[in-house]
């Protein structure tokens, strides 16, 4: 089934499936391609008979660039805002965020809830810093300043509750352990800006990165001098990479070439790409795997469209 939803007047920046509800989806969007103007948070239900229904809509003063659901409270989620703020929303309440933190001095471009120690989340900003937060605290718990350029992605390890990774415009990936004040590992992962990363859910030393250099690389952190695999195919910068929660060898990516691609990193030979979804008509910024429906992807793009579909290559039993 392929269903679509139009985020009219708002360009998609990121989306995430709920970790608690099978068909609930949150989408972070911005007016005017995120360059100037308002933002809008959509909470959607993709399971209805008529396709996708809107459950909630929240408006913000500046664009929304990233989103993460709480791992503790099934109704709460956090957004990364263009004005440097981070907002905590409760989907049972209308209109306003229940918490607002404003410490970053430039656009916040990533937020991610800790998957193991579920009382913290992390944020990355164009002010080059990373901040660690506890939703119960009025201030950030820790600030990390090592990157020399915008931080585009911050992702907790799904295996160890104190470890997260960051990707930056300075061409570096850094691995952090909240028990230490400095990064514990640095990878010169690409020869250009790195816009996205994700952890493999099945191999605790494996991460995937996506870069402005058009490539996606798979890394084994125990052997950081060179990538395990380099996936070529995107014709412009890779904006987002996501590892499948169901299969350790499947990676989805979205990019400035308006495509969504699915890769099987274990496929023999050079041809690792197993699916090309080219129905978006503008930059694709968001892609996420549904945790409950194996193979189901949601994507959002600057064409104001959200797509929910199961790529043929990921139909159960196909791989």
């Amino acid at each position, binding site marked *: 089934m392929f269903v679509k939803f139009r985020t009219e007047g708002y360009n998609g920046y990121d989306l995430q499936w709920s970790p608690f509800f099978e068909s609930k989806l949150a989408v972070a969007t911005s007016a005017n391609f995120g*360059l100037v103007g308002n933002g809008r948070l959509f909470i959607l239900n993709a399971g209805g008979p008529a396709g996708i229904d809107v459950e909630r809509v929240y408006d913000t003063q500046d664009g929304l660039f990233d989103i993460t659901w709480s791992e503790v409270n099934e109704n709460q989620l956090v957004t990364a805002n263009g004005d440097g703020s981070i907002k905590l929303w409760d989907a049972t309440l209308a209109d306003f965020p229940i918490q607002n933190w404003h410490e970053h001095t430039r656009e916040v471009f990533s937020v991610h809830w800790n998957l193991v120690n579920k009382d913290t989340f992390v944020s990355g900003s164009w002010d080059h810093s990373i901040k660690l937060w506890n939703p119960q605290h009025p201030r950030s718990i820790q600030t990390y300043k090592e990157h020399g350029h915008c931080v585009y992605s911050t992702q907790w390890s799904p295996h160890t509750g104190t470890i997260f990774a960051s990707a930056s415009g300075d061409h570096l990936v850094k691995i952090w352990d909240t028990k230490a004040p400095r990064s514990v590992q640095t990878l*010169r992962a690409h020869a250009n800006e790195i816009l996205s990363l994700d952890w493999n859910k099945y191999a605790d030393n494996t991460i995937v990165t996506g870069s*402005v250099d*058009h*490539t996606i690389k798979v890394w084994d952190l125990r052997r950081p*001098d*060179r990538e395990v695999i380099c996936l070529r195919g995107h014709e412009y910068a890779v904006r987002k990479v996501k590892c499948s929660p169901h299969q350790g060898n499947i990676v989805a990516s979205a990019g*400035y070439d308006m495509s969504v691609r699915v890769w099987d990193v274990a496929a023999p030979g050079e041809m690792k790409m197993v699916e090309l979804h080219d129905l978006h008509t503008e930059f694709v910024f968001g892609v996420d795997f549904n945790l409950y429906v194996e193979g189901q992807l949601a994507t959002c793009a600057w064409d104001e469209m959200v797509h929910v579909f199961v790529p043929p290559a990921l139909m159960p039993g196909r791989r």
Partner: protein
Amino acid sequence: MASQRLELISSHLTAQPTASSNVTRIGAKSPDDIVIVSALRTPIIRARKGPFKDTLPEELLAAVLKATIEKTGIKPELVQDIAVGNVLPPGGGASAARMAALYAGFPESTAINTVNRQCSSGLQATVQIVTAIQTGLIDIGIGAGVESMTTNYGAAALGNTSEKIASANQAAADCLLPMGITSENVAADFGITRDKQDTFSARSHHLASAAQKAGLFNAEIIPVTTTVLDKDGKEVTVTVDKDDGIREGVTSQSLSKLKPAFSATGTTTAGNASQVSDGAAAVLLMKRATAERLGLPIQGKYITSAVVGVPPKIMGVGPAYAIPIALAKANIKVSDVDIFEINEAFASQAVYCVEKLGIDINKVNPKGGAIALGHPLGATGARQIATLLTELKRQNKRVGVTSMCIGSGMGMAAVFERE
């Protein structure tokens, strides 16, 4: 704010893929960069007259290979392949090079080959090793070059060629022209006057002499201990650590008194052409990730290179054609380059190339070139890399180019970035 956001997003779109091409980017470090861990050379010594007159080419090569191991501390068994540029030796110098590597301390497992692209052989050897590392055939290698013009320079090195071909094809016949005549052709075709050639040559000696006095060659030269037969035929051990072709106090006036060497009406003389010399050089190469893993120093990185054919009868114009191609591959302009090492095979062709490309003369061969130092044919391409990187470091500059013309009509150029 909107404009900053637009600028950032735009920068994501304009980036060229680095992964699908071998052009390493200037100013952006990558673990896949091919870096130069060391670039060393022997002194360059006048053939048949200097203290290398009784030293064979494989002994010079062994000296610079041994010094590469000693100076960097690299485990010799990690070096998987060595390419050696040489031009004149019979049999391509292949067995002699293998002997040199074994004698220098490399194990039997370290492979070696020789390569001959005439005067660019040392650079060609370096590019060969770079390419092998880039494609993953090897992890660590050495690009080297050697020539003992004492041992092998002469008509015998040329061998016999087909008269059938030469009589049927003028350009093919032009490949047999003596190099001096090609220099006369460049001077005549493009109006490079004797005075310009002599002025350029005096500059080369002047700069080399000043550089030598200031010790600017010390970082690139490794001393070579060898034996010389004195005039009584007695073997004397000497340690050579200085180039001996540089003549202090040479002026364009003194050079103007020399007779043309190739044509009675010509302008090319022994004083405005490169010297006939002996020497060797070696460049240790690997990926940045490998150097960092082994804790080895990084002198600079290879960016790209180009080689292109030109008319054989004016082979000296080669750099004027090769340099623009290499710069285009590196996506930079002539003015972006801080130092050019352009081989001074002849002042005629060097002056032509500098003028043709509009290069600021102050950026050209700042420590002198082959007119003062000498031109051991197979070694020069590797020697220039050593000379370039040390000078970029001294001047605290980044981008350098080496280039040379190639007998039988070609030019080659390479771009490097010091780190």
